[in-house]
């Protein structure tokens, strides 16, 4: 039992927790932006797959790392525009369209991978982001390595959270975006276009999801393989609810999930074969569901979420 607790006091555990959380932070923020504008984006899982491949393939083909991140973002935005086009001006079911986008983006990515790399048997590697220690701060116990000895990509995730929070609550654009998700009529009555705001939000949010996917192939690992996103997109959907549609809480939720996941791996080492390892794999999800139940019962969701807006309809 003592050994199980000791895990919590090792630096490597916290480093892993934050690393695991990083892609979730990006994708959760992306989903949060979409939903705050009133559009559920279930394309998240597939868009992460596409982003993971696009970023990795750019670097594999000779681009530099930040170019890879930018290409991933653009890929995500493109799928976002498709999702937006179908759900905003055309007003199709956001559930069905989102699942369609996930299937399309995933299969299209695998197909492109096969076309681009027909010969390979084991996934080729790239030179991924390296940890960048921030002097002095990284020397603090536990917190130091966890927050200040990560790759620049992880720092970008934290910066993105701050930026999204600023955007939503401190800028006229953020105000318009939230109004689009609360009462589109209010937006339209003030002379702003609901369609433009929602399309923009879905494109921007999808770009963030794809960047989250790219983290997997460019920072957490250094190659692309099938099934690597493995349900992370769906976790982010839950994290948005867990975070009550607020960037700060969503960030905490992502780190909490990262901690659960890092913990279960280490717990397997401590407990050994006494319990089947699948139980541990299940652990973060079970804990997430419990946390979701505890936290989000009183969450107030955006009132116009999943309600298509048609101008002038009664």
């Amino acid at each position, binding site marked *: 039992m003592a050994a199980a607790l000791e895990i919590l006091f090792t630096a490597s555990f916290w480093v892993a927790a934050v690393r695991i959380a990083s892609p979730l932070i990006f994708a959760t923020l992306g989903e949060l932006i979409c939903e705050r504008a009133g559009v559920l984006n279930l394309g998240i899982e597939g868009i992460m797959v596409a982003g993971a491949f696009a970023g990795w393939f750019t670097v594999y083909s000779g681009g530099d790392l930040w170019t890879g991140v930018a290409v991933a973002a653009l890929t995500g935005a493109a799928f976002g525009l498709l999702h937006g086009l179908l759900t905003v001006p055309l007003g199709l079911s956001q559930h069905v369209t989102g699942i369609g986008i996930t299937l399309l983006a995933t299969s299209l990515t695998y197909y492109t991978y096969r076309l681009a790399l027909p010969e390979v048997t084991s996934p080729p590697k790239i030179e991924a982001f390296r940890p960048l220690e921030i002097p002095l701060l990284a020397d603090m116990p536990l917190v130091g390595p966890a927050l200040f000895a990560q790759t620049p990509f992880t720092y970008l995730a934290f910066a993105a959270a701050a930026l999204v929070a600023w955007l939503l609550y401190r800028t*006229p654009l953020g105000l318009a975006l939230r109004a689009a998700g609360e009462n589109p009529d*209010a937006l*339209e009555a*003030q*002379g702003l276009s609901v369609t433009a705001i929602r399309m923009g939000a879905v494109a921007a949010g999808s770009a963030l999801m794809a960047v989250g996917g790219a983290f997997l192939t460019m920072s957490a690992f250094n190659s692309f393989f099938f099934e690597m996103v493995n349900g992370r997109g769906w976790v982010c959907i839950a994290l948005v609810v867990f975070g009550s549609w607020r960037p700060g809480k969503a960030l905490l939720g992502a780190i909490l999930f990262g901690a659960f996941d890092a913990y279960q791996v280490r717990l397997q080492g401590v407990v050994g074969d006494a319990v089947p390892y699948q139980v541990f794999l299940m652990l973060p999800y079970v804990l997430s569901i419990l946390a979701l139940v505890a936290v989000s019962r009183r969450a107030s969701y955006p009132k116009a979420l999943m309600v298509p807006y048609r101008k002038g309809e009664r």
Partner: protein
Amino acid sequence: MGQAAPVVLRLEGVTKRFGPLTANDAISFELRRGEVVALLGENGAGKTTLMSILFGHYLADAGRVEVEGRPLPPGDTRAALAAGLAMVHQHFTLADSMSVLENIALGTQPLWAPRLDRGRALARIREMSADFGLEVDPAARIADLSVGERQRVEILKALYREARVLILDEPTAVLTPQESEALFATLRRLVARGLAIIFISHKLGEVMAVSDRVLVLRAGRLVGERATADTDRHALAELMVGAEIPRPDIGPAQPGPMLVEMKGVTAGGLGPVDLALRGGEITGIAGVSGNGQAALAEVLSGTLAPQAGTLAIEGRAAGAWSPRAALAAGIARVPEDRHGVGVIGDMSVTENLVAEAYRAPAFSRRGWMKRPATRDFARRVIRDYEVKCPGPEAPARLLSGGNMQKLILGRALDGEPRIILASQPTRGLDVGAVAYVHARLLEARARGAAVLLISEDLDEIMALSDRIHVISRGRLSPPSARGELSIREIGARMAGLGFDHAA
């Protein structure tokens, strides 16, 4: 108003057709600085279409609009707002979970600015609130505000944009009498400051009270223009509907047996109340909104069970009380909230019409709906109750307020029920539809039904009721017979006088 005041808004020959229907037929008028012009007309007369053209939601087929001498580009909401037009819609366009300040500032600062200037917005809102007597806390969430306060926020939104023409679409439909009075005072202050106001309404009383000039629309055409001082309600009503409206002919009541008896009933903020409804009588409940009317209506319609006291229907004590039990007891219900409770907007007219009776043998057999029977029933109700709709299969949300109410009346009254609950049955309806509803309720009275009429429109209560109770803070006054009390005496009771809680 002085004729010298400059024209701020001019419409010339504005025409809009929807297929064969001409919604606006060559409408021309001028609006001058500092005046309140009432735009009067029945539902469907073309008032809303005309305003939608001003705001660029529709493109006119012909005609032009000028604001302060400059032509207004058609089909451009932003241009209309920028030109100084502002509209307070009947259904407020506010985001409930956001603050007053956020709602007002929305869309007023450059979208790509790196920072929303809350300080400047706050200072201006405070200043305007004080200037115009529009008190509201800028930090409050819209969801926490009363309807009257929300309307103030809508007006502040317009003023914040430096609107010079303010258009109010049926602004009093959702207000209590006191809130309406406060609104009228605000409007007077606004015109004194040089705004021009278009006041859309079909309530003649308030049009007479608030406007300087009245424009009357009927079937898409401007049929009359009168200075308010030179006309009266009766003349306006005639212009509006095109013929003199027959006043309801009310014969003496023929009291029948006691059909509903409540003794010491309490439920959700109501009571304890005693109430008796007799056949052949209309019992009116007068009172200011929010004094327990909703709970009283819910008890009678079965959606709220009494916590204490007894409820007897036709002499038998009501057992387990539920909406189904109320229906089975023969209570017909005309609910207060047409859109939310009365109909299911996305379901068809037919489905809405059988919503209370689909289990009856006439409409279903062993759990299977009899489609032809329901359709025949719907066709008959549509004909008998003059419901204007595209057809029995059309979704109910396409119906205008008046026609939706006719649908509900048809559903409630068709089986000649013995007990009828009519809760705010004419709220938001035009003169023609109001007269129709009144006639149907009087018809039911004549054939011996007991009608409970709950209304915030005191004129309506006084005109129709054989007995009047006043409701105040959940308690009922003793009944007064028709003509026993003057409108002032009833008003005093509505303010709480004569109740124990007044002391």
